[in-house]
């Protein structure tokens, strides 16, 4: 039940883009076509989950026992950058087709603030679901939270890409063309997602 609440809350209620404002740059950048949007969401999903697990373990067994928590930011960004590189190399060897699909998006992910944001959030914020007591997540919950959050990212991205493909065909006043109308559309989407806020 607890896991179900985490999943619902991370995907709909606290959607990473529409409620937490993480990963907005790639969200706006690669969402003009549905196919690139799905590719990017796939890559983000993979990296966020992996990075959260690795940084969680590093924080728990390395930074905290040694009293080095103040190095968290530096340590995490280095781990994420290294991880993205490793994922790229491994994918190239193991699954060339997946590599071709995600390839160009992988290097971009290092500077996607969603990855670092989720990693930092998981180790430093206390969560409470459905009125339960606030607590730090354990490894299992952290993994589920990261996976669900990135699915929420994918959902928002794919929905938005669909809307943008339709927008491109419409006539928009000149000053609204491009990003402004896209931002206003996201605003309306965010308003729709606010409707979920009572569930969990």
């Amino acid at each position, binding site marked *: 039940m607890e896991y179900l609440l985490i999943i619902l809350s991370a995907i709909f209620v606290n959607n990473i883009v529409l409620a937490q404002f993480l*990963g907005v740059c790639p969200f706006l950048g690669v969402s003009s076509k549905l196919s690139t949007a799905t590719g990017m969401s796939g890559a983000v999903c993979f990296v966020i989950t992996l990075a959260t697990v690795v940084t969680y373990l590093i924080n728990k067994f390395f930074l905290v026992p040694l009293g080095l928590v*103040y190095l968290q930011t530096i340590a995490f960004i280095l781990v994420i950058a290294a991880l993205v590189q490793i994922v790229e190399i491994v994918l190239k060897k193991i699954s060339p087709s997946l590599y071709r699909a995600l390839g160009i998006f992988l290097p971009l992910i290092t500077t996607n603030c969603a990855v670092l944001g989720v990693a930092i959030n998981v180790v430093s914020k206390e969560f409470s679901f459905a009125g339960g007591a606030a607590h730090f997540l354990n490894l299992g919950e952290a993994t589920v939270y990261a996976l669900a959050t990135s699915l929420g990212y994918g959902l928002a991205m794919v929905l938005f890409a669909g809307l943008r493909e339709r927008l491109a065909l419409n006539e928009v006043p000149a000053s609204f063309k491009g990003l402004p109308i896209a931002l*206003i559309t996201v605003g309306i989407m965010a308003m729709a997602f606010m409707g979920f806020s009572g569930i969990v």
Partner: protein
Amino acid sequence: MSKLQILTKGLLKENPTFVLVLGMCPTLATTTSAMNGLEMGLATMFVLILSNIVISLIAPVVPDKVHIPVYIVVIASFVTLLQLLMQAYVPDVYETLGLFIPLIVVNCIVLGRAEAFASKNSVVDSALDGIGIGIGFTLSLTVIGIVREILGSGSLFGWKFIAGDGILAFVMAPGAFIVLGYLMVLFNKLAGKQ
């Protein structure tokens, strides 16, 4: 480019928020009030100036293959410094801005200026560039914050001029996107791009 041009281009011509559209996450997330926007802008400016200075100094000796990781470490060090300073001197500001202070590391403006400007220019020019872009970013964030605060809570820099609540949606997530969208339209119109 003259020194004055470097300093002022961040205001209009290369405004990081409205023209370059970089660093969207803190722009949207921290502008719930004018003060928060201003503080976030200043925090980013701090990192931007220092990292620009250091990167312009070390750029000639950094091997090309590893320059991005090196730049990120430089930026992350300054962000850590900023975190410690803020925790010590302005703990409540640190508390309000929360996650978005460590996230300055992955703010594309900082890395973008390092890559596009500081690595190719002199120390003085890079410092001026940091100040200029920083001011541009701070001003944009403050303007967004002012609009959202007026509409959302009926106040300005904490000074309340309407009794009761404002339009709550403007303080929450949807308002951030919508206000930024409309301000961008206004900016396009005024800058005469259309």
